[in-house]
């Protein structure tokens, strides 16, 4: 195994210079994207540098409450981000997204840290933070897609849902199809990713481990673990947020509260 090559800031700057290619394309084709490109490039550098500094500190301090605090901030940001791009919203959607994201990702992260990787102590930041981060990133997508699809399906099938209720259907019977569609939509990206992993692209974490000098077989083992953690976290998060939303939008009297659903 060749030794790991540390990058100087000059080397990082050289890579950043490649963004000029994007700029040139934008100018040549008059895409009018230069300003946005500049902002995006700045965000990339600033956000990553900041998180690098924060992580340096968290790794150095190495205290359970600091790691827990960091994990909480990551989870809250993910839970809120999951509701940012849905076409429909309802009162209480954000808290349900937060609850689903929190519950599912922490359960899976606990299994990963405590039972699978067996990190001792459990809060070792080198493991706890990246593992949770990868679970959260995917759970967020599942929660977001599930919420979006559930709202879309219920809005599009409003009349059918109501017709079923009028014929004696329970709230579950009336909502079953939209709920199933929503859960399916949330799970598909993960399943697709699992099918092509390693063939179409090498996952980021595995690439990172390879660059850091880990043997490919070791890196693959970790990647397999991660794929399954991500798949289960996404599944739990999507099902939770869809069921929590269903319970909010259908009351105990088997009525569909469609007026709560806002575009």
């Amino acid at each position, binding site marked *: 195994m060749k030794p790991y090559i540390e990058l100087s800031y000059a080397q990082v700057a050289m890579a950043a210079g490649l963004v000029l290619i994007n700029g040139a394309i934008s100018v040549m084709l008059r895409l009018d994207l230069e300003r946005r490109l500049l902002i995006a490039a700045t965000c990339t550098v600033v956000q990553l540098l900041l998180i690098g500094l924060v992580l340096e500190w968290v790794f150095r301090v190495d205290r359970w409450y600091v790691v827990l605090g960091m994990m909480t901030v990551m989870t809250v940001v993910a839970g809120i981000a999951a509701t940012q791009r849905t076409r429909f919203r309802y009162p209480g959607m954000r808290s349900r997204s937060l609850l689903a994201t929190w519950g599912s990702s922490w359960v899976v992260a606990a299994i990963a840290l405590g039972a699978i990787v067996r990190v001792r102590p459990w809060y070792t930041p080198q493991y706890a933070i990246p593992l949770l981060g990868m679970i959260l990133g995917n759970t967020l997508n599942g929660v977001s897609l599930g919420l979006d699809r559930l709202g879309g399906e219920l809005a599009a099938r409003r*009349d059918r849902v109501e017709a079923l209720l009028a014929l004696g259907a329970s709230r579950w019977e009336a909502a079953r199809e939209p709920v199933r569609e929503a859960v399916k939509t949330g799970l598909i990206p993960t399943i697709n990713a699992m099918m092509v992993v390693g063939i179409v692209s090498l996952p980021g974490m595995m690439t990172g481990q390879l660059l850091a000098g880990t043997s490919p077989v070791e890196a693959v083992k970790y990647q397999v673990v991660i794929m399954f953690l991500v798949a289960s976290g996404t599944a739990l998060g999507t099902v939770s947020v869809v069921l929590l939303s269903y319970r909010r939008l259908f009351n105990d*009297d088997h009525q569909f509260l469609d007026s709560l659903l806002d575009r």
Partner: protein
Amino acid sequence: MANGPAIEAVGIGRRDPRRGADGWLIRGVDLVVHPGDRLGVLGPSGAGKSVLLRAVARLDPIDEGSIHWQGREVLGDGVPAYRRQVIYLHQRPALMEGTVEENLQYPFTLRAHRGRTFDLARVEAILHRLGREAGFLAKNARDLSGGESQLVGLVRALQLDPRVLLLDEPTASLDPVATEAVEGLLGDWLADRPDERALVWVSHDADQARRMTDRRVFLRAGGVAPEENV
């Protein structure tokens, strides 16, 4: 059931959920339906006729009052069982994907109708009365006109043997011939078991209301105007 009221709605009030505290759509409305009743709900557009009918069907939450079925308040898990007996028929009934026959079979997959089966001969007989022949069952629901959808909605409800039909302008999209057929069918349906069945009919058409109902409730601006008995 012959003695007491089938449905008793007491002091029904519903607010517009988007307007909040003062946005009452209907308020203080009482409605009693006895077996054998042919009750008309009349009033100008926006008076709250559909709101009342939907509330009585327990399809929408109410903010005041209560609804009783055979003396018991309709709540919680009793609601689907109630809706099996008291079916609300929308002006434009929503149909599922698939053929007319599949639409008519669908309700039998619901728990509330467990143990009962789709009766093709009976459905064909009802459709025949409505001027539709057996080939109609194979039509795709997507290809139906508004009037045909309304007929399918009606047959889908009738085949379930409800006790009470809450009809929200059930002939709004029909031509005069089909309207007459529907009126005749519903009149016979009620006359068949007057000690068990009842109709509540929302209509804009005063002549139809006179033909199809014996007792009428007038709504104005979300409240009941004095009842007119004929």
